[in-house]
């Protein structure tokens, strides 16, 4: 009995309804509602009504290559699906849950669509929509006043990880401010500093060809990095051994051969003990070490007292396992790594801790070789240069300069900058231009960030939704999301996949009056008489960039990605490393010159009081901190966060699974539900980042779960100023009056 011949079907009725516009009206009514349907790709059966647009994801920093499947024109244009671009080696032809969920940005009721002017107090959520002309005039006027009354450095510029952030930096330079920060001093600054000071550059990791991986704290099967996450699974399936050290049992720990629940803050003790075993038992490639490294004997002397027994006392990991770990690593070398990790905003000596990571890697002789750390091949795109002006009445340096010895000039330290703003020392900073980043949601000590914002004369935020930071601003400017704009070309390093060049092509038009930040800073520059810094269009910049390689333009048009395919290993070719000694510095000449410990010295973490816990944070494959909030598709899988707590610790506190609890640190109090699990140390508690938003609106995120920013205390790394989050201690109690 064939079912295909019946014509009187529901589908036929719907089609006729659409023809009369009924369905269209119904769809419009629904589109702004909370449960607006995601466009249904299955409804479009005509292959001709379906177009491909090359772009790159922006749901996290990875920027995986994407092919958008699109249908329709103009305001009816709809994205049916975001698919991976199989031709991009770096993204391994995949697209994660968040990448797929990008379509939910398009019809989201939380999208900003018009410039807004604050009418009540900061954070009072009273807004008046204004025209772009008024918004830009007010912003330019405020910036002029701040420059005149204080100095050009009186304006702070903070731009997130975005392909258009370079225009915010250019604008800041043209305006004349040195005070530029990003999210990096809340994240990866320490590991970058440490590896740069050891190897002269920040390396990629070749997990694809690695045989033995020790991963401390990193969680590659949930905190996705491409190609690392895909390559790690392939390596494990091939027989590579993965050993995970983490206070909690993450999905990466689940896939590992061994999970050691290391005491938080003791990684360096473990690593120094590894060095001792490798050196004492002569488990290293003597010839390679002697010709490539500097300071072997100093290291040997330094780790003489770092015995496995000593490390056991510190870490809680049995000495026999530490010895075995060293031997297994060395046996697999050079196809062995201590994974450098990325987020290293953990302790006040995080740079020195990561130096420990770097030094063990150096002893494994894995640099610039398959299965080890990779020197990055240089891939440069042509640019439109510009000359930064000089203002004699400017202060001498960044407002956070001089507080730590190894500050990155282009990054600074958000935590130190905030302190400087609040104290007014060494000079006043009174204005803030924020693009695509949310310090209220991710910087430690949210109350302090709020105080900082309240102390400023003027704040303008450019964003796609009302983040907590935009919520506290004076003017909010609506930006198109990544699917709604063209972008300049950009280079991504891909480790063993090699580098690639991608760009973004606008897939659908932006809603309302959204304008990309390029247009915003260009217009502001014009009003501030620094328009010469932006005397080009985005299209002209792209054309200039497309001249960088033969075939770049046509390959991008046909494939959506260009892979220059340079050599990936053996890049050093005997050339000196970019360090003072010209070698890999086990012993850091630079640190010695600056009066810092040239070899990493272990500092035990502060003891955890009996009634307290170490608070650690992380995420899942469906979360990108606060950026992925308010996404209807992701909310099904990551709708809120819970407090992970060991059953024994919970029992002592009378807390049952699912009970509401109150978590208190010295800077804040949050409430959320407890999740009892043996997959965490009894002295540690954990929550996902990205929840507990303050900003209210039609979206899903307001008030859901607890905010890590409200709880974390603002310590910072003594060398580079990276935030140090895991020094925070919290108490946990069953919530009073809770069900």
């Amino acid at each position, binding site marked *: *009995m*064939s*079912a295909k011949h*019946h014509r*009187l*079907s*529901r*589908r*036929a009725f719907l089609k006729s309804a659409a023809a009369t516009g009924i369905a269209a009206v119904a769809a419009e009514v629904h589109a702004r509602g909370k*449960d607006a*349907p*995601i*466009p*249904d*790709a*299955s*409804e479009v*059966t005509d*292959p001709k009504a*379906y177009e491909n647009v090359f772009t790159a994801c922006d749901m996290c920093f990875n920027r995986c290559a994407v092919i958008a499947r699109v249908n329709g024109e103009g305001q009816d244009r709809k994205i*049916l*699906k975001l*698919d*991976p671009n199989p031709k991009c080696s770096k993204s*391994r*032809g*995949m*697209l*994660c*849950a968040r*990448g*797929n*969920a990008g*379509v939910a940005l398009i019809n989201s009721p939380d999208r900003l669509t018009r410039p807004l002017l604050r009418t009540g107090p900061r954070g009072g959520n009273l807004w008046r929509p204004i025209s772009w002309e008024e918004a830009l005039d007010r912003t330019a006027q405020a910036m002029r006043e701040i420059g005149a009354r204080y100095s050009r450095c009186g304006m702070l510029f903070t731009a997130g990880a975005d392909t258009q952030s370079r225009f915010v930096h250019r604008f800041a330079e043209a305006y004349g401010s040195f005070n530029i920060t990003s999210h990096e001093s809340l994240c990866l600054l320490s590991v970058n500093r440490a590896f740069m000071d050891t190897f002269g550059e920040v390396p990629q990791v070749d997990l694809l060809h690695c045989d033995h991986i020790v991963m401390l704290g990193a969680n590659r*099967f*949930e905190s*996705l990095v491409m190609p690392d*996450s*895909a390559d790690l*699974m*392939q390596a494990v*399936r091939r027989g590579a051994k993965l050993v995970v050290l983490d206070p909690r*049992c993450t*999905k990466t*720990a*689940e*896939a590992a*051969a*061994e*999970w*050691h629940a290391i005491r938080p803050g003791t990684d360096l003790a473990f690593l120094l003990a590894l060095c001792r075993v490798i050196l004492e038992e002569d488990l290293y490639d003597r010839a390679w070490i002697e010709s490539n490294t500097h300071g072997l004997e100093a290291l040997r002397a330094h780790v003489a007292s770092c015995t496995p027994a000593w490390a056991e006392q510190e870490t809680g*990991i049995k000495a*026999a*396992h530490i010895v075995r770990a060293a031997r297994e690593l060395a046996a697999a070398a050079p196809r062995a790594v201590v994974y450098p990790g990325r987020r290293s905003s953990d302790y006040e000596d995080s740079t020195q801790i990561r130096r420990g990571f770097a030094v063990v890697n150096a002893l494994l002789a894995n640099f610039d070789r398959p299965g080890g750390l990779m020197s990055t091949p240089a891939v440069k795109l042509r640019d439109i240069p510009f000359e930064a002006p000089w203002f004699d009445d400017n202060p001498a340096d960044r407002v956070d300069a001089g507080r730590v010895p190894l500050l990155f000039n282009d990054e600074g330290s958000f935590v130190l900058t905030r302190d400087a703003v609040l104290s007014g020392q060494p000079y006043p900073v009174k204005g803030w231009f924020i693009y695509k980043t949310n310090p209220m949601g991710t910087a430690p000590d949210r109350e302090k960030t709020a105080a900082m914002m309240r102390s400023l004369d003027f704040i303008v935020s450019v964003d796609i939704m009302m983040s907590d930071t935009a919520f506290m601003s004076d003017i909010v400017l609506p930006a198109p999301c990544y699917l709604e704009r063209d972008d300049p070309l950009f280079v991504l390093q891909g480790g063993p996949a090699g580098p690639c060049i991608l760009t973004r092509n606008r897939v659908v038009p932006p809603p309302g009056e959204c304008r990309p930040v390029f247009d915003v800073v260009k217009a502001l520059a014009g009003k501030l008489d620094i328009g010469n810094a932006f005397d080009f269009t985005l299209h002209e910049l792209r054309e200039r960039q497309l001249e960088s390689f033969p075939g770049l333009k046509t390959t991008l048009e046909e494939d959506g990605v260009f892979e220059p395919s340079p050599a990936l290993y053996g890049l050093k070719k005997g050339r000196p490393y970019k360090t003072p000694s010209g070698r890999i510095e086990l012993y850091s000449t630079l640190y010695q010159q600056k009066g810092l410990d040239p070899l990493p010295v272990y500092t035990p973490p502060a003891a955890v009081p009996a009634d307290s816990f170490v608070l650690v944070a992380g995420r899942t*494959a469906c979360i990108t901190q606060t950026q992925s909030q308010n996404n*209807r*598709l*992701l909310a099904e*899988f990551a709708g809120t966060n819970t407090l992970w707590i060991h059953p024994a610790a919970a029992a002592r506190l009378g807390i049952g699974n699912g009970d509401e609890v109150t978590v208190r640190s010295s800077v804040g109090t949050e409430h959320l539900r407890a999740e009892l699990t043996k*997959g965490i140390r009894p002295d540690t508690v954990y929550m996902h980042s990205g929840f507990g938003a303050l900003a209210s609106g039609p979206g899903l995120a307001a008030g859901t779960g607890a905010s890590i920013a409200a709880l974390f205390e603002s310590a910072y790394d003594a060398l580079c100023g990276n935030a140090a989050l895991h020094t925070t201690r919290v108490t946990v109690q069953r919530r009073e009056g809770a069900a």
Partner: protein
Amino acid sequence: MNSGKSLPETRSVSGMVIDASRCIDCKACLVSCKVANGVPAGQSRNWIKTENPGLDALTSGFVKPRVRYQPGGCMQCADAPCLNACPTGATYRTPEDGVIHVDKGLCIGCGNCIQACPYGARFRHARQNVADKCDFCAPRRARGLMPACVDTCITKARTFGPLDAATRAAAKRFAEEGAPPVTKLVRIEPPAYETGPKLLYVNDTAPRNWPAYPEQPLPVRIMTGPPGRMLFAASGASLFAVLLMGITQFRERRMHPHSASEQHTDRNASGLCPEQSEDGAERRDSGLRPKTGRKGETP
């Protein structure tokens, strides 16, 4: 009612070969499917099952956790309980690829198929109010694209295609990657019922014994059980009886033209048959009137 047992064993039958050991429960396949197929919030055409033995087994100072993830979806069964349960034929199989579809125009929303499926692979679509299920992304395949879950997977745990080709492709890829070879394909089936799934797992997977025996819904059981058979038998018998009556009447007419079978069609205004007159003139004998019928009475 269709019988699912009639599937020809064609080697072009489409299938999915999954290496569950690669699954990291990232939910990419769930979101990808949802977007590609317009699945409403809170519902899903596919799933990821978990087997977590717990962390009690602390061996020698460290833990070897063995949480297993199992991505799955409609098994496109060779012997499909949903096909058997569908009263309208809305659920049907395309012979060229062996994929089972729902014709939403024919579906009356009875819910039989949802009950019948031992895998829980079907659901009532919250907006359309008809049955919904995985069809290996038929609209995408029509455009030369892979099913959404296959395409998007971070660890490339899924291979799709004509089942034997998909198996060979998976085995080849594993060999190139240095992964353990494909030594067998595992079926997840209910006890005592070979559904013949076309979504197969490489080497091993867990959990294994979760599908229940596919109990057909009550109306289906009635209609296909003894009461149903009796009903059909009775219907058949009635039909036969009517046919027999018809044949007998037909034969009578042929043997006896102008018989009483024509009389009752021509009553005049007084209600009397035309051959009757009010003065009681003699009527023809139809042979059907009772012999003892009184004058003027119709039988």
